[in-house]
Every structure is written in structure tokens, then in C-alpha cells.
């Protein structure tokens, strides 16, 4: 039995042997996580069912459990049972339920295993209910009882213990940067070019997804090349470089706050003006939008996506691109956390229009785009891998319809999922980050 399957088995055993005390912990934590907004939302759902086929899970698999209103309903049943006005008296009338072992199991299966927190249902809800944020709160209650599926929990634990979610040691990180710096110097034919580390007073502090250092070093090189071409003053931190934050997905606000605080600390210690987030959808949502709420403080400095920086470089003429170097047909996948939930919608399109000759949109696109199926921590939760690949069918069909040879996406989570979809659905595409496409077109 592998370590992974042992962890999964032990998680199932824990679910099977849940005590009333565990359920009480979840209930109490849930109450703490419910705020006025969420309580108002939970009083609003009329079960109209119009959200059903806006969810990629339900579109692909007509299991009623996949309907967003049913996922919300699981939470609402418990909310009504304990915190509603009348459901305590006549629970059957409102379908309210006690939070017992069976209900906790349903919560885990539906809230972790049937939702990527992509927000497409929220956008389409006739009432305007922010379903993913309520689901995240319920995930947080499960997290308080250590009932986050093993793969996702271990990703959070690794990030907390080792400083980044891949557990990359400091010396390995430094070595990677050193090696990539030599590559950059060869590439731009300038021995003075660098990938600066801990440069005090640099204007920008740039962060990465640790998967870049482990598996996709070209995207780090690409960002370095763009900064070089723009003559930017920037730096990496040797201590805190991880833009990801799986606390967003596990629902654990304390862990999430701790991870985001590290980047804030490094920016302060290095005296950088701006915190620049690599191409990572959930990393952007976490650090740009959620972290100030987790940490309960206003930042007082700009937190930007690298896409905003690149778009500004192009607009201000700081970098020149030759689009004819990217002649293959390119399409764009919009990461949910960056676009629908993050507000970065047009920057990537502005960049691609300058960097490629044949750009074609998916249908639908922008904030209406479908989730690739890899968000919400799904890539880390191996127990739901089959569902993840199945729900990705929708994205695979979207890609096929464009006839594109290259899919660009500003998110490493999405890249991982798209790579699996590429193999599974035989799409025969290349998958790149925006920075990689820009680096290919850079005139130096």
C-alpha cells in the first residue's frame, strides 16, 4: 500500500468513525465562519434550479448532487437546523438536517469533491448568491476538524512547514535561480543580466508558483527575460517566493493568512514598492483579494498580477514584441480565480494581441468561461481524480472547437489540468504561460 493510499484509507476510517464531538467542532466552527452576508445568502435560495447547467460538474454528469443549489442546500439544511428561526420546530417542512456523521460525509464528498469554487454558479444565480464563498466557509469548518481530503491537507501542511507547497529547500531554490540566470545570460547574450535574489530596494518583489522551479523553469526564465527587456528593478526573495495558497481551497483562514503574511513580510524587509504575483489564478485571488481579509489589515502597497505589469510595459513601450514569431493559432483559457473572481480580464488579451498573429477566443470566454476542472484543490485531491478528468471534458471540447495549436493560460494549476486533459482527450496542443509567449516574441 502506498503512502498516498494509506492516507486516503485513514481519512475514510476517520470519516466512518466520526464522533459527536467532531460534529460539534464542525458546527461551532461553521457558526464562527458564517457572517451576515453568508446568512443573508442562505436565506435567499429559492431552489429555482437555474444554476444547474451553469456548473461544469452538472453539465458533464447529471447527478443531482452536482447541482450548485444542492451543494448549497447541504449547508443550508444544517444552517436552518441550528440557526434558522422555524426549521428547528418543523425540520421536515424545510428539509433541515442535523450535522451528524452522514451529513459530514456528504459535505466532504460534495463540497470538496464536486466543486472547484470557480464561481460560475454565483455569476448565474438569479438571486446573486455567492455560492463558492459559502462552500469555502463550510470547507473551513471541516478543516477545523482536520477533515480536509489528504492530498489537499498535505499541500497546506507542506507549505506551512517548509515555506512553499512543493517543499523546495532554500539551497535548491538558490541553485535553480543560479542555473536559470546563466541560461538567461546566454539567451540575451549579456553577462550582466541577472535573476536578482534579495535585492534590497528593488521596485518589484516577484513571486512564483513552486511548480515552476520544479517542473517549468522556462516560465521563470521568461519572466526574467521580460523584466530584463523592460529594464525593471526587481527581485526574488530567497526565503518567501511561493505565490500559491492552498488555504484558499482548504478553507483554513489561519493557514491561508500565515502563507500570505510571509510575502508581505519579505516585501517589507526587502523594501520593495510592489508585490507582483506570478501567473497563478488562486495565488492572485488569495494574495490580492483575500489575504487582507484573512490578516484583517489594509496593505498600503500595490499587489498586482504579472499580467498587469507586462500589459503596462507594452502600453508604455518598455518592451517591443514581434508577433510574427508566434504564428501558430493561439487560444486563451481564463483561470476562474484570476478572471471571474479576480477582475483581470483584458490584460492577457491585450498582451496576446501584441504577441501572436492568430489569436482566437474560446466560447464562452472571459468571466463566463468554464473552469478547467483543476481548481478548488482538485489537482491535489487524488480521490476525485476521475471526476476531475471527466469534468474537464467541457474544456477539452472548448479547446478543440477553436482549432488552436497553443493554449495559453496564466495559471500553473490550470496548466497541470490542461496537460492531463491534453493527454486524456488527445488534444495535441502545446500549453504555455503568457510570459512564455511574450518571451518568444520579445525583441531584444
Amino acid at each position, binding site marked *: 500500500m502506498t503512502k498516498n493510499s494509506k492516507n486516503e484509507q485513514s481519512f475514510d476510517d476517520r470519516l466512518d468513525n466520526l464522533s459527536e464531538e467532531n460534529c460539534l467542532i464542525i458546527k461551532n466552527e461553521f457558526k464562527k465562519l458564517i457572517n451576515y452576508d453568508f446568512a443573508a*445568502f442562505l436565506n*435567499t435560495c429559492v431552489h429555482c434550479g*437555474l444554476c444547474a447547467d451553469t456548473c461544469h460538474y452538472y453539465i458533464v454528469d*447529471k447527478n443531482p448532487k452536482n447541482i450548485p443549489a*444542492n451543494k448549497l442546500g447541504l449547508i443550508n439544511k444544517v444552517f436552518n437546523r441550528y440557526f434558522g*428561526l422555524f426549521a428547528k420546530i418543523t425540520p421536515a417542512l*424545510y*428539509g433541515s438536517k442535523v450535522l451528524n456523521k452522514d451529513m459530514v460525509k456528504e459535505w466532504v464528498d460534495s463540497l470538496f469533491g464536486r466543486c472547484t469554487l470557480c464561481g460560475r454558479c454565483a455569476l448565474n444565480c438569479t438571486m446573486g448568491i455567492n455560492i463558492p464563498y459559502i462552500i469555502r466557509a463550510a470547507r473551513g469548518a471541516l478543516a477545523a476538524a482536520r477533515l480536509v481530503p489528504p492530498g489537499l491537507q498535505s499541500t497546506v501542511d507542506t507549505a506551512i512547514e517548509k515555506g512553499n507547497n512543493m517543499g523546495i529547500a532554500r539551497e535548491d531554490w538558490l541553485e535553480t535561480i543560479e542555473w536559470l540566470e546563466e541560461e538567461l545570460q546566454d539567451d540575451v547574450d549579456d553577462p550582466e543580466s541577472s535573476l536578482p535574489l534579495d535585492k534590497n530596494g528593488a521596485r518589484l518583489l516577484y513571486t512564483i508558483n513552486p511548480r515552476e522551479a520544479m517542473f517549468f523553469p522556462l516560465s521563470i526564465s521568461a519572466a526574467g527575460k521580460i523584466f530584463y527587456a523592460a529594464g525593471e528593478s526587481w527581485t526574488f526573495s530567497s526565503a518567501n517566493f511561493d505565490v500559491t495558497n492552498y488555504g484558499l481551497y482548504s478553507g483554513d483562514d489561519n493557514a491561508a493568512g500565515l502563507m500570505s503574511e510571509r510575502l508581505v513580510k519579505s516585501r517589507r524587509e526587502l523594501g520593495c514598492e510592489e508585490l507582483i504575483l506570478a501567473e497563478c489564478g488562486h495565488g492572485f485571488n488569495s494574495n490580492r483579494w483575500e489575504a487582507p481579509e484573512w490578516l484583517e489589515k489594509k496593505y498600503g502597497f500595490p499587489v498586482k498580477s504579472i499580467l498587469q505589469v507586462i500589459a503596462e510595459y507594452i502600453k508604455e513601450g518598455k518592451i517591443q514584441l514581434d508577433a510574427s514569431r508566434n504564428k501558430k493559432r493561439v487560444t486563451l483559457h481564463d483561470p476562474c480565480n484570476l478572471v*471571474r473572481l479576480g477582475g483581470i480580464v483584458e490584460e492577457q488579451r491585450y498582451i496576446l494581441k501584441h504577441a501572436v498573429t492568430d489569436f482566437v477566443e474560446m466560447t464562452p470566454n472571459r*468571466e463566463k468561461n468554464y473552469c478547467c476542472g483543476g481548481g478548488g484543490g482538485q489537482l491535489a485531491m487524488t480521490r476525485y481524480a476521475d471526476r476531475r478528468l471527466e469534468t474537464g471534458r467541457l474544456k477539452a471540447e472548448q479547446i478543440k472547437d477553436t482549432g488552436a495549436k497553443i493554449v495559453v493560460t496564466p495559471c500553473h494549476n490550470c496548466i497541470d489540468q490542461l496537460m492531463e486533459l491534453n493527454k486524456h482527450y488527445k488534444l495535441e496542443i502545446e500549453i504555455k504561460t503568457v510570459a512564455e509567449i511574450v518571451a518568444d516574441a520579445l525583441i531584444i
Partner: protein
Amino acid sequence: METVLRYGVIAAFFISAVVLTFLVLKTLSFGRRSLNAAPRGNWKKGVFYAFGQGMMPWEKESAKNHLLTYMAGFCYHFGIFAALFYLLSLVIPFACGKMVINILQVLMVAGAVCGLGLLLKRSLKQFMRSLSCPDDFIANLLVDLFIILSFLNSSLINLKPILFSVSILMLLYIPTGKIRHCFFFFYSRILFGHFFGRRGVFPRSQHQFKG
């Protein structure tokens, strides 16, 4: 008897309002979420969008793909408001002109048909049944009955005692079940607009680097 029931309607309205207020206060007791992240867009524009363009079927895939259901929902609510206005005219009382009554009747008939249609959809479609609890059916039936009785009373026969009795039941039921969305809908839409407006997602006029 009719006068007693008329006062009963007024009393039920106030009881409903008090319970709804209590429900709102209970909701408020969960505390507000502080917002510290610097906004990228304008939340007011987002709220404006949420109640305007954001309600249009072409803006929402859920509405566009289920236009009949979405329009039935709209019609149903117009019918409810028409019946409520008619009830008000009986309770206060005040006289409505023939033309006003005719308009109300058209709205009530359309509303009742749509309400019953939605009830039928909920009963017949398997995925809708999976979403529903008894409250969903009771609330719909009660409101349909209220609209139908209002229409019948306005056009054919004097059904005031029954209409007032059903109105009392309906008013008392409002805060207890799903009909309470009549209040929370507005708050949810404000929150929706606030969230997406602040983040610069909606309205699209807020997008930077537009092509």
C-alpha cells in the same frame, strides 16, 4: 365576519413584518465581514449593474438558456404584486378604476398560470424534485391560491372571506419559509453587485486594457 378577517389581514401583515425584522436582526447578529483589500473597481457601479443590466437574460447564461422559466418567474412576481395591490385596495379600502382592475386582472391571470407552471415543473422534473422540500410546494401553492382568489374576487364572485383567510395564512407564512426571499433578494443582489463591482469584473466598462 368579513370585517374581522379584514382586520386579521392587517394584523397578519404586521406580525409578518415584525417576524421578518427579527429575522433580519438575527441575520445581522452573525456580524459583518470587513473589507480591507484595495478595490479595483467601483462597487456602486456593480450594484447598479446587479439590478439593471445584470438581470437581463442575455447577461446570464442561466436565464438565456431557460428563457421560458426565467420569464415565467418574472410574470409570476408581477402577478403577486398585482394581487397584493388588489388586496390592499380591499383592506384599506380604496376604489380602483375599471382600467386599473383590468390591468391587475391580466397580470394576475398571467401570474397564476406561470406560478402553476413553475409548480408543475418542480413536480415533474426529477432534478427539480431533488432540489425541493415541502416548503417549496407549500409556498408556491399558497401564493398561487392567493393570486387565483384575488382574480376571482375581482371579476366574478364575492370571495372576500376566503381571500382574506388565505391572505392571512400567506402573510404569516412569509417569514417562515422560502417566501422570505422577498426581502433577502434585494440584499443578495446588492452583495453580488458589491463583490463583482469592487473587483472590477462588472460592469465590463470597468475593465482595463480593453481592446
